């Protein structure tokens, strides 16, 4: 993608209301639920509040290998079969834990859970909400102070 396409991609992501391009509506439903199990609302908003599932829809289509894309779709389908979005919160956690133990030994492109973690965390923590509310972010820090006491409520820097 050439540099000139920046604007188009940004415009696509900024478009409101959101519309998925890569995943089906059913897949998006599962995805929205699962990203909030990974990163639920705490003292900062949940992953879906930062449109992390829409980030994944765009970024996975553009950035992931064909094998990873296939692994991810199959993983969503497997969760869909279990009616993941309709399960009670505890049952969602149990199911995802089982999936994590099965997937952690696998290589990245074959591991639904690893791909899910990668895209969910990147999508959320580098979003405006994630970077500025869940983490600390300064676009222009104004300089460098190397050695400061850690304040009790200090969040980690996003970058």
């Amino acid at each position, binding site marked *: *993608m050439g*540099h000139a*396409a*920046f604007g188009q*991609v*940004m415009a696509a*992501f900024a478009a409101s209301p959101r519309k998925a391009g890569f995943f089906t509506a059913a897949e998006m439903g599962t995805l929205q639920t699962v990203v909030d*199990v*990974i*990163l*639920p609302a*705490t003292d*900062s908003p949940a992953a879906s509040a930062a449109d992390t599932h829409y*980030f994944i829809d*765009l*970024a996975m289509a*553009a*950035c*992931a*290998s064909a094998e990873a894309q296939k692994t991810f779709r199959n993983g969503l389908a497997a969760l869909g079969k279990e009616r993941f979005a309709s399960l009670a919160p505890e049952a969602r*956690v149990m199911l*995802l834990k089982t999936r*994590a*133990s099965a997937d*952690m030994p696998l290589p990245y492109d074959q591991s639904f*859970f*690893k791909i899910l*973690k*990668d895209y969910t*965390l*990147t*999508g959320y*923590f*580098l*979003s*405006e909400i994630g*970077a500025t509310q*869940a*983490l600390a*972010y*300064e*676009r*222009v*820090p*104004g*300089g*460098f*102070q*190397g*050695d*400061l*006491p*850690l304040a009790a409520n*200090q*969040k*980690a*820097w*996003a*970058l």
Partner: protein
Amino acid sequence: MSASNQFDAIVVGSGISGGWAAKELTEKGLKTLVLERGRNIRHVADYSTALKDPWQLPHNNRATNADRTDQPIQSTLYLYDQSTKHHFVNDLEQPYGQAQPFTWYRGYQVGGRSLMWARHVFRYSDLDFAANQREGLGLDWPIRYADIQPWYEHVERFIGASGENAGLPQLPDQILQPPFEMNALEKHIRKQMAVKFAGERKLICSATAVLSREHNGRGPCQGRNQCARGCPFSAYFSSNGVTLPAAAATGNLTLQPDSIAHSLIYDEARKRVTGVRVVDTATHKTTEYFARVVFLCGSTLNSTALLLNSRSSRFPEGLGNDSGELGHNLMDHHNGGGATASYSGLSDRYYRGRRATSMYIPRFRNVNKREEKFTRGYGYEVYTNRGSWTRGIDSADFGADFKNEITRPGEWSLYMEGYGETLSNHENRMWLSPEKPDAWGIPKINVSMKYRDNEKAMAQQMMEDAVETLRAAGLENIQGFNREVTPGSVIHEMGTARMGRDPKTSVLNAHNQVHAVPNVFVTDGSCMVSSPTQNPSLTYMALTARAASYAVDQLKRGEL
């Protein structure tokens, strides 16, 4: 020849060396044409991604499959992402041959790689300049530290570098602004090293062409550590932000982007080069430009290719290639050996801002004592930070507790890697395939280079010394590594038109002047005779300024 094509000087290339040649020559009154093969990038105005937040960049700054298709080599660089990719070439449009794997990272634009460089600026010492002669390896440098020392000063005063002088003979003291502060872990390591190594191994803040204080209306650094996007505060040194504006201010500069130097025009009767044949990248038309002196600053492989492609009956094997050494003796540094570690203490300390440089451990091998397994040495770049959200990617955990944990600063971690000298070797080389011209009629460049026994033995010791240093400093979970490195990947390619005293064994003399063609100077990395451990750009700048001063002197005397 039309008057508009006539200049006093032509500089090929606008990167680190070309920018310096332009500044020095124009300030000495020469009407100077700077030819740049790539597009123009105006300082600040064209730094299109400089102030973007991650969420304002496509895919939160991730490279796409399409990027990796167009830039299969460039996209492997640690710097490559959505915010920097436009500063790197399209590999498909700019192919080169790899007889052995060679990673060539390139930036074809005004400013060249001075836009994306890592900004470390160390001087070489006589331990470096005299090494080949002392050991009977390669060729002796025709200069010593005393010859270049005033030019290091000249350059440092102008570029404005920050950092710490180590006070070691092998890493000469420099003119530096105060260093950026060490973080708590670095202070701890520095203290421990002082106790355990009695001054033989030291941790210092790297000398870096990043301003910690305001300098000539530039800077200081605002702690973004996004230099490779271009700096809106002019806080790091680039041609675009520093030398080219100085050259333009003289009124003597003509900067011409989108212009590929095809070959040099040689006058057999006068035994001088009279100008440069230039291909317009858009129209593919060739135009000739003329000057009394020509500086080649197109980066090592391209400057050498330009000489090799300038054939005449006097120079059938390439201009200035009486020695047969043109294209040979290609070097790069190697950085395969190092270590990682963590530290569970100092959990009550943090930092603010993103420091745009590393810490450094200057060379300590083969300084006072001769090693048996290898000659020469290495210095380490040391990077430390506290864990960020990225530590959550590879974990099996998720949920509210997980989110709370990874949004707090994690444990300290450290990464260090050695940068070692590569010995010059005739078999490490580049050559042209005239039968395979690119879209602009320029022959394809081929490269064959490999690291050999001395580099391999050194890399093993690099790893062992890194582990030993971190153990002594009390770090935890120390993991040494000694990984395979592809030549070129340190982006310090150099040596293919080396300096020397004897025209039979070298291409350039002690003033970077082609032995047999005195009005051609080559002052980028191709002039290097050896590849000391330190980063080379400061030396290119100093040699360029020194050669420019000499060239103007010689012009005035009518010698060119």
